[in-house]
């Protein structure tokens, strides 16, 4: 055994494996039509969708997912990037990609029919697929939802030591603060971040779900979170209890509307499989895919006829003005989010909201 694995043999084996591997990798590239996808979204969320697309169109979809550094990789690869489509979970990233000149303009009748104008790039570089709202989670036991109708209400002294939050510098919170900068100006946004930080029950930590857990455990009463997490928690046997003790408030319904952000796609400038890429984008905006976002992920589908999931329909049932889960969305701030991102991060740094 040891003789077999002598250092010299080890090198031989290693080299052989390396060469073989790279050769087979080359040979494995089939002739079938392919489309290459860079995704901020995790693969297991996408797989069911892509499978449906692959079998319907006889196109193979290759995926790399990464939450960090996707834009940077695309930028470095430049005009030879193998990516055809980029899928991001934040409109800010789509805007950034288009500003860096990494996307190409794209028009399709089908897409225009599927997705309302408000969720398509006015310049034609990207298309929204699904939306989510950043809303307020509250303890049904300890909070009177009538006292908490807006993001601004979170600044109130009566919530001192009652709020839980994930890191202020998480993209979801940055995006929310950007919308506040847009509507109320920088000075107000800064004092909002400061006040909310002062009201925190504990150091920012965990993700949106951990905050709901903390509310159900009595560590705090209020947190900010994305809508779809409520749906996911209600479906998860280990998390159902947390969610059932927690209610949802759609903030700012009388004023700007609740903050939303979208998941969307764009076709890269370097794309060499434009036909297949177009097909995929059309598919993602179509009925089947939109239905899956709604039912599986509990997001808001952007294609109008597609219904919300049952759970999502029930959100805000006891809040006046909200019927079947339909609420007022903050559409105005949406396209400004990417411009305000750096400013927003700076304010969070200034407020010490880590």
């Amino acid at each position: 055994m040891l003789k077999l694995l002598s250092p010299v043999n080890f090198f031989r084996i290693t080299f052989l494996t390396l060469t073989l591997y790279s050769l087979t990798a080359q040979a494995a590239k089939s002739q079938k039509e392919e489309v290459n996808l860079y995704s901020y979204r995790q693969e297991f969320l996408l797989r069911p969708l892509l499978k449906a697309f692959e079998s319907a169109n006889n196109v193979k979809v290759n995926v790399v997912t990464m939450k960090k550094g996707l834009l940077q990789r695309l930028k470095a690869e430049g005009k030879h990037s193998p990516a055809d489509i980029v899928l991001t979970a934040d409109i800010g990233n789509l805007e950034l990609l288009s500003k860096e000149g990494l996307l190409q303009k794209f028009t399709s009748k089908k897409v225009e029919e599927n997705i309302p104008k408000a969720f398509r790039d006015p310049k034609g570089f990207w298309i929204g697929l699904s939306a989510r709202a950043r809303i307020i989670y509250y303890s049904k036991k300890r909070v009177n939802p009538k006292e908490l109708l807006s993001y601004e209400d979170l600044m109130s002294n009566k919530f001192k030591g009652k709020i839980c939050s994930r890191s202020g510098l998480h993209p979801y919170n940055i995006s929310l603060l950007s919308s506040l900068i847009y509507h109320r100006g920088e000075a107000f946004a800064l004092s909002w971040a400061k006040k909310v930080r002062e009201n925190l029950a504990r150091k920012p930590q965990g993700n949106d779900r951990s905050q709901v857990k903390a509310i159900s455990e009595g560590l705090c009463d209020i947190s900010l979170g994305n809508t779809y997490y409520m749906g996911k928690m209600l479906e998860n046997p280990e998390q159902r209890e947390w969610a059932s003790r927690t209610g949802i408030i759609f903030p700012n319904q009388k004023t700007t509307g609740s903050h939303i952000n979208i998941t969307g796609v764009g076709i890269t400038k370097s794309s060499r499989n434009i036909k297949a890429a177009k097909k995929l984008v059309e598919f993602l905006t179509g009925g089947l895919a939109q239905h899956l976002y709604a039912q599986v992920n509990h997001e808001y589908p952007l294609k109008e006829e597609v219904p919300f999931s049952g759970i999502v329909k029930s959100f805000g049932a006891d809040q006046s003005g909200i019927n079947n889960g339909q609420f007022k969305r903050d559409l105005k701030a949406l396209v400004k989010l990417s411009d305000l991102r750096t400013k927003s991060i700076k304010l969070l740094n200034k407020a010490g909201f880590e």
Partner: protein
Amino acid sequence: MKKVLRLKRVWVLFILSALFSLPFFSTLLLSFSPEEPIFRHLWETVLPGYIKNTLLLMIGVGMGSFVLGLVTAALVSFFKFPGRQLFQKFLILPLAIPGFVIGTVYLQFFEYSGPFQSLIRKWFGFKTANEYWFPEIGSLGGVIVVLSFILFPYIFMTARSAFMDQSQRFFEVSRSLGKGPFKSFISVILPLSRPSLTLGLSLVLMEAASDFGTVHFFGVPTLTSGIYSVWLQMNNLGGAAQLASMLLSFMILFITLEKWSRSQKSYYSLKGNHRHMQLKELKGLKGVAAFSLCFIPLFLGFIFPFSLLLFWSFSHIDQIELSRFLNDLEHTIFLALGAGGLCLIFSLIFNYIQRSLGKTRYVEGAVSLATLGYAIPGPVLALGVLIPLAKFDNFIDSVALSVFGSGTGLIFSGSVMAILLAYLIRFFVLSYGSVQTGFLRITPKMDEAATQLGAGFFDRISKIHGPLLKRSFATSLILVFVDSMKELPATLMLRPFNFNTLATRLYELSSDERLMESAPWGVAIVLSGLLPLIILGHPFGGKRKNLKEEEKES
């Protein structure tokens, strides 16, 4: 002729260390041209906090793992007590579990709603968090403790091999001069082990400074988190590079300080028959104490988190897609083997050249540069590899286009080669250090004798160096293999299409709050990490036949 050969070697050395310090230099270069001047803003807001946390983290983890590693290594090296044989083999196991996995396991276990505090509340009848005090686990102190229990094996390993090779004679001389055993240990054995201990400690410090996942989960912002925020969220590559350069300069400062203070002393080796340390038997309570001192770190760093992973795996075993799992496993093992092999080859090249050139300042400098990769945070490393590679690919493409009329596209970036290069750069120091320690055992006189007996270069390698370096090879392979199995940030960012490793899949699942479903992948990482230990033999196990060789450390 000889001069030409020497010059060639210098060139090879320089080119290689330039390649290995590619991420370092590209970072440095970028830091001169930030997209938007950001340093002042950072300095006035969050940067002092980042620096403080980073330094405290390094100091805390450094001290924590140093004590843990040193105590356990000293116990198994100098004393006989129940379980010693097992401890000397198993105390390196915490290295096999990815840090972010242990981190999340501990957070979940000790947080307010976790089983531990729930139990306390049940026992004492507390209802809310205000009624009792419990240390906040998601804090700097929490990370320091957890990282110390994960990283102490680096100290344990290096200390153990230093102690193993030490002679009873020094100890006896010290004792006969009237010093007690403890004092003799402090004043004789410890200083003699210093070069090895320094290697271990610098690995720990670099690992702590570049940690991304654990500090993130614990909510402790360090320079590394700052790099992430400035680079990926503010999209300010240059600004992030400034922070990265700052982090690297801390490391360089530390290494230089150590080198400088060591240069005030020299390390001699004595010829003669070495007798190995005789183990002193610890009986009764002392034995129990020794057992506990070794058992606790092993339990907290490995047994406990691994048992939880195993338990979760069995409860979610039906959810594993086997084909996917095997695919991930194949990718992971391929990368780990490739990185292990590459690192070893380059360590040998470096060590041979260094040996033939002798100790000079520029050679030392080149080596220091080449081994810096370990201190670079994963994402920065990924980018430091990606940008130059993509530039290179694009250059080749444009050359091909002008010469042959058709481009080549991207060759290396976005391929497995990019990941391998990143691993090679990151883990080179592990391999280099192990091989170097082995080479110190082979004196130039042995080479001369072999040459006089007519042995050529390759004869020397296969007949003399090979056998003598076997243990170092094994250590090098094991370290690089295990660390590659766990590597996450660079793999995530550099991987090709449809490519997952055990670690990336584990991360994707656990970051979606599906830690329990991800457990089988964690178990697979740990078990495959153990594979090389089984095949190549344990670095501290087996016969100690080579150890009679004279020690020389300088």
